């Protein structure tokens, strides 16, 4: 009960106190309010800061992880490229080695082959040597031939000289020029003794002074004497010359055969006329009387000549066919004589068996 009394005692104070407290509290209220505000703001700030710190920490973690990821990715890329570069370098180097070897080989084998060049130059010098020797030989041979030809010519000249001066030969009584009694005979002397005399061209070789027979008579042409004949007959046992030559008897036969005139040449040009004359004579001999048989009708006796239209008028001048195409002096070209008939020749038959060439022969 005490408390109740204390409380009741304090009851009137409550209003005062209440108002006193409120008053004092109000007095502290601003302060406390400000303090509370300060505390709250500080606390809130702390909270926010802690949040921000938290966020920052999280952000750092995220960024850390993200950058790590990126870096690793980058690194992987770098490793890849480095690997690739390394491989490419390796390949390049190997390719360089291959190309080096190949180019050296190619140049040495195909473009400038030292050994081939050496071989070639050696071959050239061998060829040169061979050519030089061959040419030497050839020149020597030519020289020898020329010398031989010269010697032969000289020999021939001497012989010819000796033959021409054959009269200088020494006789028993008189020694010749080359055979002086006071010294050895000259070689020319021996030469002259050896050769036979040089004869002037004999009468047989001169132009044949044949008495030109009268060729006006026809039959003299066929005389065998007007064609040249050989005086010397060929030797009997002459052996055939080697080569594509004919038998010498054949050749001489051809060369010296007499004239064999053809039928046309042999028949006289008047033979036709002579034959006709003969026939006429024969008939006249056999005829009973010589009266010519006349035709009965005189149909064509009184025919009158009808001149051409072009010739009938005199106002045409020189007409078409009158003067240009007809001969102005017809008698100049016409004569009373008729053509002579001549036998046409059978040329083929004439040549048969008489031609020298062997064309067309079978055996």
């Amino acid at each position, binding site marked *: 009960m005490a408390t109740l009394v204390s409380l009741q005692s304090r009851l009137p104070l409550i209003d005062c106190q209440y108002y006193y407290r409120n008053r004092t509290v109000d007095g502290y209220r601003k302060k406390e309010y400000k303090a509370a505000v300060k505390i709250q703001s500080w606390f809130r700030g702390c909270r926010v800061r802690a949040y921000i710190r938290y966020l920052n920490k999280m952000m750092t973690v995220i960024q850390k992880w993200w950058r790590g990821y990126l870096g690793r990715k980058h690194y992987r890329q770098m490793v890849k490229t480095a690997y690739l570069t390394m491989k490419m370098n390796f390949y390049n180097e190997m390719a360089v080695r291959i190309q080096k070897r190949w180019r050296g080989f190619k140049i040495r084998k195909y473009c400038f082959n030292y050994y081939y060049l050496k071989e070639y*130059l050696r071959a*050239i010098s061998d*060829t*040169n*040597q061979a*050519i*030089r020797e061959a*040419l030497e030989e*050839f020149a020597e041979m030519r020289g020898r031939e020329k010398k031989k030809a010269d010697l032969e010519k000289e020999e021939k000249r001497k012989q010819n000289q000796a033959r021409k001066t054959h009269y200088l030969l020494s006789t028993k009584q008189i020694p010749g020029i080359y055979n002086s009694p006071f010294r050895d005979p000259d070689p020319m002397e021996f030469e002259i003794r050896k050769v036979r005399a040089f004869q002037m061209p004999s009468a047989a070789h001169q132009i044949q002074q044949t008495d030109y027979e009268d060729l006006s008579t026809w039959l003299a042409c066929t005389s065998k004497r007007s064609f040249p004949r050989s005086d010397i007959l060929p030797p009997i046992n002459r052996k055939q010359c080697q080569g594509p030559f004919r038998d010498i008897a054949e050749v001489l036969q051809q060369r010296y055969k007499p004239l064999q005139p053809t039928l046309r040449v042999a028949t006289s040009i008047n033979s036709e006329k002579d034959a006709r004359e003969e026939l006429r004579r024969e008939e006249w001999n056999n005829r009973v009387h010589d009266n010519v048989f006349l035709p009965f009708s005189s149909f064509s006796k009184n025919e009158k000549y009808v001149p051409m239209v072009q010739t009938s008028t005199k106002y045409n001048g020189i007409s078409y066919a009158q003067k240009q195409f007809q001969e102005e002096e017809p008698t100049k070209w016409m004569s009373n004589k008729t053509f002579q008939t001549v036998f046409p020749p059978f040329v083929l038959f004439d040549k048969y068996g008489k031609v020298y060439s062997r064309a067309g022969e079978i055996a």
Partner: protein
Amino acid sequence: MSQRQVLQVFEQYQKARTQFVQMVAELATRPQNIETLQNAGVMSLLRPLLLDVVPTIQQTAALALGRLANYNDDLAEAVVKGDILPQLVYSLAEQNRFYKKAAAFVLRAVGKHSPQLAQAIVDCGALDTLVVCLEDFDPGVKEASAWALGYIARHNGELSQAVVDAGAVPLLVLCIQEPEIALKRIAASALSDISKHSPELAQTVVDAGAIAHLAQMILNLDAKLKRQVLSALSQIAKHSVDLAEMVVEAEIFPVVLTCLKDKDEYVKKNASTLIREIAKHTPELSQLIVNAGGVAAVIDCIGSCKGNIRLPGIMMLGYVAAHSENLAMAVIISKGVPQLAICLSEESEDHIKAAAAWALGQIGRHTPEHARAVAVTNALPILLSLYMSQDSSEDLQIKSKKAIKNILQKCTYLPALEPFLYDAPPNILKHVVGQFSKVLPHDSKARRLFVTSGGLKKVQEIKAEPGSLLQEYINNINNCYPEEIVRYYSPGYSETLLQRVDSYQPLV
């Protein structure tokens, strides 16, 4: 007067004419008489005798005219001016073979002097009749007309073209195949004269089938014929590669090489001309000649001749060596360089020396090996002296200078270069010192030799502008040696030594 006396007068006149014309023809063979004859007015007297009734007088008159016209060109002009040519041409078509020969001789004698006279002959229509005479049976007539055609065609291209247009070429090719040697000679010389002017004319000759026949005749024994045949082939081959190949296809190698050994000088000359004309076109043709052993034959031929005969052979070596270094090496191993060096020193004519210098330059310019081969024969000092001497012709100086330059650029054979240090003009000295500066840094033996032979001393004496190329070369050379040696050899070293002696305080 009786008939016989009248006829006797005519006979006397005829005898007098015959005698006159024969004597004139005989006198015209000697040159000293011709002046007198000309002054006596022989032309105007001979002219009516050409129209004489008697054929012998005509022929002898034509022969006398031909001999006179042959002597000099005034007389030939007098023949042209006297209107004798149309009469000759007209009777050339009709008369017998002696007259044809004499008339063709006159045409030849007139045509050989100058192009204008030859043109006069062409203008009076002689070519057609001459070509008709080429078809005659008598070889003497063919020879005379071929000779006349050859002399006309010799002068220039238009006249050759006129001869070809008259249809002479196929007939000349037929004449070549005839058995008479003189006719062959003349026909070959005519073909040679026709084909020398232009490629078209040469092609015409080739189209007529001349090459095969000419190639066959190379083996003939007659020297003059061989001259003409080789000359004809070389005139054909010189124009173009195709023609040269056609000549080669006629299988003239190695037969042509036997002609290089012939006794006759001009056969050798023409054969080497032919080979030269073939070799100069392409490397392949030169290769062919080298493979056939032609180079050796030509070198022997050069060795056995003197003077102008050598010239085509020397040029041939130059052409072959100019194409490529392998061919130049082939010339070197065939022992060509000593022969060329002998030519260079022996010959007296400038143009032959110039050709030898050019050939040596072509051989030595390819690689150091080649230059060494040329330098070993001691040709370089000769070339230098030819370049420096005042009485060489300008052509010789230019060619020897080029040859020296070509060889020096590749020459690493130092013993041959040393004489150049002493007496070369400055522009060549630069190259020489340059070569030394290239070789010396790498070769110790050469350095030693250079010092002992006095070359280093000479190099020190050379005055060069600082900064010039020569100075650079000299510096390069000096850098190859230790400094004391360079100082020892520098000029004026003995003075500096003596100065040091003067200024030395003796140690007491």
